[in-house]
């Protein structure tokens, strides 16, 4: 299966670039994502799909965003479903007039201040189910550090984004964060999980 292996570069980025942290793209008139109880989520990453190599199971353009939450579990729910404290948001079209309208805080990192963030580049790769790529990637197979949590009905979810620990975010003790989406209904039903050594 094809996947996009990701590499990072620490520098200032525009609002519409693919990046980790910093300011997310928020269309004009749209509120910043919050939990059901109104607490703001933490912006983790966004991918301007037009900038990345194409994958046959992903749209060719639009903005794909990932949010987590500032708690002990980074927003992971016991059901694994990413509907409240973790979220995947996809914007099919990008509003070029979008502006940063509020200051954002950083998450678990001394490196990322204000507009400074980590830009992302992607390289098309072949992933192997038995020996999956362990670094950050879009698509492919999840490289679980502990165990695959998907049983029964959850097996219909495929890996969308795997973010491995880095100096920017350490999932526990060198772990990985995983976002999955429904194979048959992409972006509408999603899962979030993380594990560590």
């Amino acid at each position, binding site marked *: 299966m094809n996947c996009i292996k990701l590499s990072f570069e620490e520098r200032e980025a525009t609002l519409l670039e693919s990046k980790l942290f910093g300011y997310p793209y928020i269309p004009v008139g749209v509120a910043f994502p919050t939990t059901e109880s109104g607490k703001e989520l933490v912006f983790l990453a966004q991918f301007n799909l037009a900038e990345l190599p194409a994958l046959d199971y992903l749209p060719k353009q639009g903005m794909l965003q990932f949010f987590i939450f500032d708690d*002990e*579990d980074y927003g992971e*729910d*016991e*059901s*694994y*479903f990413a509907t409240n404290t973790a979220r995947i948001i996809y914007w099919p079209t990008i509003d070029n007039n979008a502006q940063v309208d509020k200051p954002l805080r950083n998450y678990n990192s001394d*490196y990322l201040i204000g507009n400074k963030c980590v830009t992302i580049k992607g390289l098309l790769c072949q992933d192997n189910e038995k*020996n999956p790529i*362990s*670094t950050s990637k879009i698509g492919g197979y999840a*490289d679980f*550090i*502990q*165990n*695959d*949590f998907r*049983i*029964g*009905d959850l097996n219909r979810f495929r890996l969308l984004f795997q973010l*491995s*620990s*880095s*100096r920017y975010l*350490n999932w*526990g*003790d*060198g*772990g990985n964060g995983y976002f999955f989406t429904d194979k048959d209904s992409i972006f509408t039903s999603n899962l979030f999980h*993380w*594990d*560590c*050594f």
Partner: protein
Amino acid sequence: MNNTDYDSYLKQLDDMDIFLTQEEENDLAEIARLSESVHSQDNLGKEIFDTIEKAAIDSIAQIVNLSDIGDWRPDQGAVVTTPLNFENEVFACEADKKRFEMWEDRTDGRWDVNEYRKRAPFNNAYNQAKQVHLNSTKRNDGSYQDAYTSKTLYCTSDERNWHIDENEQQKHDTTTTINVDHIYSVAGLSRDPKLALYSSDTQEGFEKDLSKVANNKNNFANTSEHINKSMRDKDTLEYAKEHPDKEMDLQKVREETHKANQAKTVETVKMAVKNQSVPFVKGMAKSAVAATGKKLVGETLTISVQEFFVEFRGKKVSDDGSLLDRIKRVFSNIWRRVKEELSHIWKTIAEFATNNAASEIANLVVNFFFSTAKNIFKLIRCMMGSILRAFKIIADSKRPMKERIFEALKVISSGLAFAAGAALNEVLDKAITTNLPFLAPISSEISAVISGLVSSILSALVLMAFDKHKDKMKFRAEQDAYNNLLVKSAARELTRTAISDQKTAITMFQTVKFIEEGIAYMAVKRDQILDNFVQIEDTNLEIKELALEVDTSQAETCLLLKQLKKL
């Protein structure tokens, strides 16, 4: 080695030149100035010099019998890279410096510690070890036991781990889901200075070494996903103490940590043998080489110190020629004594260490010590800085005398340790390269190991010496404190006795009062009981009278009944 060789070596000593650099000349000039200053102070003089000399020589005299364990915290450099030295950026060799730079990059975040986790060797080692661990800890019913809490755990896919909530949504329980925890976290290990020091000096090599420690089976412990994630990369025992709500059994955590620590130590020693010392470390540490080096350096230093003190004790510079002349005279005396006194030691050692590789190298050390005799001057020059600093401290009239002596001692002893290691390192390196060409590629490692051993010994020596003298200095204060405690204790006992008396009196008074009240109460009760007895007797009489009346009535009733029947 025969006597002719010795004579030849000894003769070279007579031909030596003495030269000093401009810097050393400047140091000597300052020593001279400070020396004058010292002698101008009434409360200083022979006593201080005697004390320092004795302590310094006592320290050095212990070299031969010391173990090779010790950490030294030098103010200005050292030649052995102990873990403490390592953290203080004091290195024995370039390789250790490189190790330090790599370690600093990891701890400061310049090098991403997570990089190695992305590489196949680490991942493969982890996955294999984890699977073996899981297989070996799985119970017959497919469950596992939490090593920290003893609770039962299940695999993520185990149905016993899932439940349906009130909204009919399937949820898993992180408190019963098994995770394999690294007792020493991978991130923590990558920041561990000891591991950094004893592991490889290449990035790739370090990653392999790290994997061996992190993925050692004894570094694995089953615990819940909840605890493993919550713990992040913190120390397991500290986390358990800080989070009683997690119900981790501290004794079990200690046992697991101890097991992991043992494995870590074993792996670290293996690394040290492989990376730091080459196979020589095993045999050489206890060999005649180390003994020879220790003895030679120790004795030479003892003589050097003695000569310096003999020359400068209580004498003004102007008493006996220029300072340079006096220094030269010290050197000459040192060599005279080295020739006379140490040749016997060297011969004994050479005869003792025979018929093995160690003895060959021991001979080489001895030989080279002679043939490159100028090295001893390097050693003395190394001490020069320490002597200068010691003089500065002694000349500082603002500080108490005891403190001055102690500080001067420390400086001189540190200088000695440094000088000994520096000299021996170079001597060994040259000796091995010249005389054992097949060992040339690793000569620097061998010499670093041997001189490291000597320096470790010297380091331990410095610590021991100062502990010893500190104790002596503290004794009087401690004795006073002890006496005070005794007095206080006696006073306390007297007070306690007085309080006890008071308490006893109160208790007795209360007891008497209680009994008095009790007796009065009992008298009242007795009267009441007597009254009751009278009442009971009266009642009995009444009952008897009533019974008679009843009997009479019954008789009359019977009679009437009979009369009625007749009618």
